[in-house]
């Protein structure tokens, strides 16, 4: 029992990060149909910039804010310099561009920072809290609470502001949105910035638990992507549920089957879900036009 609770805690923590990455995917996908494989690099940048500004003597809260700002800048640059000039909606081309961007950012991080693992001090110390025989790190609670706050803020923003409504209109039908006077280019750019911010926050929060290095982004992006797929891409609720489900699945299979194969189990489950429900858990079936 205590063991299961322990797996659930660690799964929930990791799953929250996957959920945030998946949410970032969903935002960009909805506004522009782009699958952004550089989403994991946003998470990496959040953690790494904070660490290195911290090492340079900047107070951590300030360093974290600066890291979020830097990552937003990278997200906007990705849209402006790589996605926009392509002028295409061919999914293969767009996927390859973001993969190129992810390789580029990883290469740049390796030079600007270094190749070692880094950590950040947890917000509320590192004494585990005992619950029913299992231990949970205070930082895990911070991750969970922040994720909930972010999701709520995002929901309020999208549901209650004019800008959010423009975002919904853009994702529903870009051409119609443009005809209604919405600057869809600005909206798409904005979604890249917002996605980058979400990724950076996730990266800063998770670094005290999982450490960070220049190459953590790849696997995070793949898992986040998988989580978004699991939930049905394009659905924000699906992204959150998919991420948490994936985290739990991983934690339990690492505990009960094999920790070496925990990544494999995640992808196996995703393949199984795609085969059984090709639209994901929350996705809608699409009718193909000839």
């Amino acid at each position, binding site marked *: 029992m205590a063991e299961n609770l322990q797996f659930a805690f660690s799964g929930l923590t990791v799953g929250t990060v996957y959920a945030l990455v998946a949410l970032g995917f969903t935002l960009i996908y909805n506004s522009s149909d782009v*699958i952004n494989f550089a989403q994991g690099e946003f998470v990496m940048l959040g953690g790494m910039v904070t660490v290195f500004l911290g090492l340079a003597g900047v107070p951590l809260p300030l360093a974290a804010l600066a890291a979020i700002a830097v990552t937003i800048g990278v997200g906007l640059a990705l849209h402006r310099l*790589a996605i926009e*000039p*392509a002028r*295409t909606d*061919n*999914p*293969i*081309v767009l*996927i*390859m*561009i973001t*993969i*190129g*961007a*992810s*390789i*580029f*950012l*990883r*290469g*740049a991080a*390796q*030079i600007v920072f270094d190749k070692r693992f880094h950590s950040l001090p947890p917000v509320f110390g590192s004494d585990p809290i005992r619950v029913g025989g299992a231990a949970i790190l205070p930082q895990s609670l911070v991750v969970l609470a922040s994720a909930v706050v972010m999701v709520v803020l995002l929901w309020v923003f999208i549901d209650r502001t004019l800008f959010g409504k423009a975002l919904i209109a853009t994702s529903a039908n870009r051409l119609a949105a443009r005809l209604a006077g919405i600057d869809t280019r600005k909206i798409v750019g904005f979604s890249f910035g917002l996605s980058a911010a979400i990724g950076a926050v996730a990266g800063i929060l998770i670094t005290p638990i999982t450490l960070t290095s220049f190459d953590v982004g*790849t696997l995070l992006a*793949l898992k986040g*992507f*998988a989580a978004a*797929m699991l939930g049905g*891409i394009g659905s924000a609720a699906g992204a959150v549920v998919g991420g948490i489900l994936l985290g739990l699945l991983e934690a339990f299979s690492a505990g009960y089957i094999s920790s*070496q*194969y925990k*990544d*494999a189990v995640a*992808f*196996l489950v*995703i*393949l199984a879900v*795609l*085969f059984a429900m*090709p*639209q994901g858990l929350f996705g809608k079936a699409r009718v*193909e*036009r*000839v």
Partner: protein
Amino acid sequence: MSVGAPATQSRLASLWRHPLASTAALTALVAVTPLFLTSSYHYRIAVLVLIFALACVGLNLLMGYAGQISLGHAGFMGIGAYAVAVGPTHLGLPSWLSLIAGAALSGLIAFIVGRPILRLKRHYLAVATLGFGLLIAIVLTNESEFTGGPDGMLVPRMTLFGWTARGTIVWYWVAGISFLVGARLALNLIESPTGRALRAIHDGEVAARVLGVDVARKKLAVFVVAAVYGSVAGSYFALFNGHITPDVAGFLRSIELVAMVVLGGMGSIVGSLVGAAVLVVLPQSLTFLHEYEHMVLGLIIIGIMIFLRQGIVPTLAAAIGGRRQ
């Protein structure tokens, strides 16, 4: 397009359109290239180009003709590579038999996973193939008793009738002839009714189905063929290198293969060779940048997708005036 020479241009164009033009051009290229290779290092690069071109021909059938993407194609290269490493080392099979067994295994796996995977569309297809490729890489990394884990393993040299394939020049001809055979077979496939059916699928799946094309079966067939091409290329890669790590099946490799196909030209067999040549030679000539290597690779991929996504060969072909390949 020059205005002055319509006669020459149309002659050139009709030559370009001749059914055997691609085969002749490729054969000439493979035969003449050694004249310009002056060192064993040059030969080494040329062999790598030919091996990757072989894998690209298979992937191009899938991407360029059937219109399906695979972000996990290096997985099949990995199966082929480890077949010729594990077969002789652990099972006592000769290398050539291991190569065939690897190709058969790749084909079988493609046959089994192909049907459910190819039912998926666009992004879902991308994530499924990606997940599949990663699974193979994870298995190769974790089964260290057989595969040596992340450090990889040595690959025994291939011996046929007492003759051992060693040396870059020998490998040039092995790879060159295999590539030509592979390219010719692919061209045959394209010109067969199956090839026409594949193009119909590319242009519109529902339309193809309405016209009586068994879409699922054709897609599956081309997926199996592409897997076998990848597996054979992977086997050659392992035998030529003499050492192999799970990187051969990795995500980055799969991305490189897709970039090669797009750069050379989707749906152009000649393009597969061109794309492989550029993406093998370019990083080699950029080694002086060593620590900037990844940054440059990323920029190259972005650049190709923005500026050259029609592919080099189709662009040139359009410029010459012919529309063939």
